[in-house]
């Protein structure tokens, strides 16, 4: 007999209250800093007076004076995007469409550069490719060459480092496009008589083109907001992009907040537009597939080219992971790093000094603590948000999705600038503490979490939950017994992603760090600018080793925990 309920709507209110509360909180965290950013950008009155005494466009009018910086930003982002796309397309093709050996291993290896922070890569490549002291150039001169073979501090060099480390996402996105193409579309061409090349040119390429274009837009937007490479390689060489310029302007005395904010808003506007185009392009419906299933694409025999192509893929991992780590190690054990040291110049003193520095230990501890906290809270929050957006009927969930994805369109540094401004005046004393960093991480990684969890949530058959409903289970009971257990692998994967992202974060942390809240990546940057490169290399390696160990442990744990029982 059905249970009588005189207040049937009460059930929904409980859900709505929790969901609505989380949604409002998330929206506040995202929009509060943006509001302050905009406020600072339009502030033309006395910069010390808050709230602003006058509003106007003057700050933006000053921007053309910095046209060189704008030009640099666009140029470097463009070059890096092209490089990333070429390499991403090539490796995605090789690993998905050819019969190169060890494809599975290679594909997993391609993810490793993501764990090596672009910052480390920038350092290592600086040691390798500085025009005078770079190891590669020293070797080149030793072999009889003149001048420098490569100059990593040139715009092209900076773009190269950006593409190498931040371009891994191009590989993942293009690979996903290739995996989602129905092979029967190509088979239809071949059956009628189209040869391999004709099929590739007339069928395959046009079908993947929109997906590749989407990846291009996304990667370009990310490159616009890139910070690490330009900071390490560009600043000393007087080469500024918008992000490093903002950082410099904010750090001076007197700080030029309004100008920095205007630059930030401009960058934000461009990125926002790109993201908008990206979503429009993707929402128009892929040309390639309907069901979202992954197909196994048809594989091309490549014969003798096999090992060449294998080498290409391996070379990416070498250039992005092996070479940098070896270089850093090589530099860290020398008194003064050169390519051909004397044996008497080898020493472990830098490691001793690094280990004794409180900054190293406390930064590591803080980063681990923050990483675990941000990942845990982040997963819970993004799970609820993903649920509201995809599985509830709450009004306004479309707007919520938009708001949650917002931080993606803002470069981290610019967002942190807004946060700094915003939380300075907040009555709670969290400024300069780990709490502020925690809030910053959770907010900035909302898009990452929501995207990952949404991916697994939409694949979950609705009827599994509905059946529970019909069986009489309340929302909370169903969540506990049906939804969460089934989503567990996805949730754990999201946890790991958020942990790694927190630990390698630079742009936001560098502005929001306080004396008691030093974290990993910005402290390595500080060391770079304030200490010798050998000491920095030692610090960086110590920290990487510890974090790498933590990551490995968590990866094993999450993998084991994500296997269903039975």
């Amino acid at each position, binding site marked *: 007999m059905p249970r009588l309920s005189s207040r049937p709507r009460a059930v929904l209110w409980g859900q709505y209250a929790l969901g609505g509360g989380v949604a409002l909180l998330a929206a506040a965290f995202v929009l509060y800093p943006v509001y302050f950013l905009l406020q600072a950008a339009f502030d033309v009155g006395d910069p010390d007076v808050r709230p602003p005494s006058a509003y106007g466009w003057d700050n933006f009018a000053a921007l053309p004076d910095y046209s060189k910086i704008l030009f640099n930003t666009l140029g470097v982002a463009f070059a890096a995007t092209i490089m990333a796309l070429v390499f991403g397309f090539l490796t995605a093709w090789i690993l998905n469409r050819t019969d190169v050996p060890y494809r599975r291993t290679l594909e997993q290896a391609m993810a490793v550069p993501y764990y090596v922070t672009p910052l480390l890569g920038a350092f290592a490549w600086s040691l390798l490719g500085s025009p005078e002291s770079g190891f590669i150039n020293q070797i080149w001169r030793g072999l009889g060459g003149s001048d420098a073979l490569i100059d990593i501090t040139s715009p092209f060099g900076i773009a190269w480092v950006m593409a190498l480390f931040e371009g891994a996402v191009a590989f993942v996105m293009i690979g996903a496009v290739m995996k989602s193409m129905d092979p029967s579309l190509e088979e239809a061409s071949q059956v009628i008589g189209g040869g391999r090349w004709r099929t590739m040119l007339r069928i395959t390429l046009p079908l993947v083109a929109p997906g590749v274009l989407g990846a291009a837009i996304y990667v370009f937007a990310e490159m616009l907001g890139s910070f690490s490479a330009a900071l390490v390689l560009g600043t*000393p060489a007087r080469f500024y992009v918008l992000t490093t310029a903002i950082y410099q302007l904010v750090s001076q005395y007197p*700080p030029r907040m309004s100008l920095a904010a205007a630059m930030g808003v401009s960058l934000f506007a461009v990125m926002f537009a790109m993201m908008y185009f990206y979503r429009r392009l993707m929402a128009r419906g892929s040309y390639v597939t309907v069901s979202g299933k992954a197909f196994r694409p048809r594989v091309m025999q490549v014969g003798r080219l096999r090992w060449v192509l294998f080498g290409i893929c391996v070379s990416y991992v070498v250039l992005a992971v092996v070479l940098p780590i070896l270089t850093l190690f090589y530099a860290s054990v020398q008194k003064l790093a050169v390519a051909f040291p004397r044996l008497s110049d080898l020493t472990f003193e830098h490691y001793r*000094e690094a280990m004794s520095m*409180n900054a190293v230990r406390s930064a590591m501890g803080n980063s681990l603590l923050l990483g675990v906290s941000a990942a845990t809270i982040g997963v819970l929050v993004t799970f609820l948000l993903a649920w509201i957006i995809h599985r509830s009927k709450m009004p306004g969930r479309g707007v919520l999705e938009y708001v949650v994805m917002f931080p993606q369109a803002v470069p981290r540094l610019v967002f942190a600038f807004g946060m700094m401004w915003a939380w300075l005046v907040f009555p709670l004393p969290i*400024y300069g503490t780990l709490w502020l960093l925690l809030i910053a991480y959770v907010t900035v990684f909302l898009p990452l979490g929501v995207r990952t969890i949404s991916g697994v949530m939409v694949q979950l058959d609705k009827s599994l939950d509905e059946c529970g409903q019909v069986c009489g289970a309340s929302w909370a009971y169903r969540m506990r017994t049906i939804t969460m257990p089934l989503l567990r692998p996805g949730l754990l994967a999201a946890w790991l992603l958020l942990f790694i992202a927190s630990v390698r974060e630079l742009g936001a942390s560098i502005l929001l760090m306080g004396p008691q809240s030093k974290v990993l990546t910005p402290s390595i940057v500080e060391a770079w600018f304030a*200490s010798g490169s050998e000491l920095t290399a030692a610090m960086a390696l110590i920290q990487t080793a510890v974090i790498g160990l933590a990551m490995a442990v968590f990866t094993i744990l999450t993998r084991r925990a994500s296997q269903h029982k039975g």
Partner: protein
Amino acid sequence: MAEIGNKPPNTSSRRAALRAGMAMVSLPLLNIAARAQSARPVTKVLDFQTTADVLKAEAEGEVVFYTHDGDGAAAAVVDAFNNDFPKIKANYVRAQNGALYSKLLAERSAGRFNVDVIQFSEIGTAIDFQKRGGYERHVSPEIGAFPTKYLSPTPGDYFWMGVTFGGIAYNTNLVKPEDAPKTWKDLLDPRWRNAMSTKQATSGMQFVEWYELRRLYGPDYWKQFAKQRPRGFDSRVPMFDRLSKGDDKVCAIAEYAGYLLYHQKGAPVAFVTPDDGLPATPVVAGAVSRAPHPEASLLFIDWMMSTRGQALYQNNLQLAYNSFRTDAPPMPDGKRLSDFKLLIPTDMADYLASHDIFNKEWNAMMGL
């Protein structure tokens, strides 16, 4: 023109110049002793005197030190303090002078008071901070060891912790001694284009150099200098790092202390003392008002002013700041301040007023 190693002949004139340079502010001739704090007993701890209540300081348990110095130098300071007072945990935050001040003011304007003691790398910043009431007036028992001209106008706000000065340095592998720049004007030679390093606009030392050379040679000097397209850095360590490895040929603001450090490591660098003088800046320290750990901050200041603290700053190669204490021994390499011709700004009003011009010019030169 002289390379280091030759004894500069005219000591007395240098001393005069030094004294003239040091007398930048009108100093009231107060009887320091008579200004003893009411009801604060003086105790002896370790080998110095303090009016801080050491027990209370230990109960506070912490002291926060903001400084412009590099990580290595700052760490040396807090480590030494920690060694002397194990119960009080000293922490530092470092940033280049301008960035440090920026951060400090932003925090204070939002009502956050996290700092106990602050050290700036140029006097203008300290004066500005004093105007804003940022310092806690504390007349240390150790203050008697400092001539009044090395203290704040009203003694007790801040004091000259030490002084650092800079000249020109070059890489001996890439530059032959006969080609090396000997005077500041030599730096304008086109052969040094794209091969020089300086500091960023946030550096206090750089502001002093800019002001002094502008005073000596006119504003045109720096306009010409800009054509050299120098590279800018945050601290002296990476500058000497690059110089040693040959990434730069010449350093246009080579701090003597940095030179000593790298010379000792065996790096191929040489130091040049231009005849016209070496721009110098005092590093200025003081207790901050509304400090979170008031007793510990007073103890820290007294410690810094004491023979121990001053010895640390002189002898530690990361710091290597000449002390102003009347009873200070010579620097480890035997030199005294009086051995150098130092250029220090005397007209404070003009100096402070020109900061904005400096910022604009220097940033533009640096590509910003």
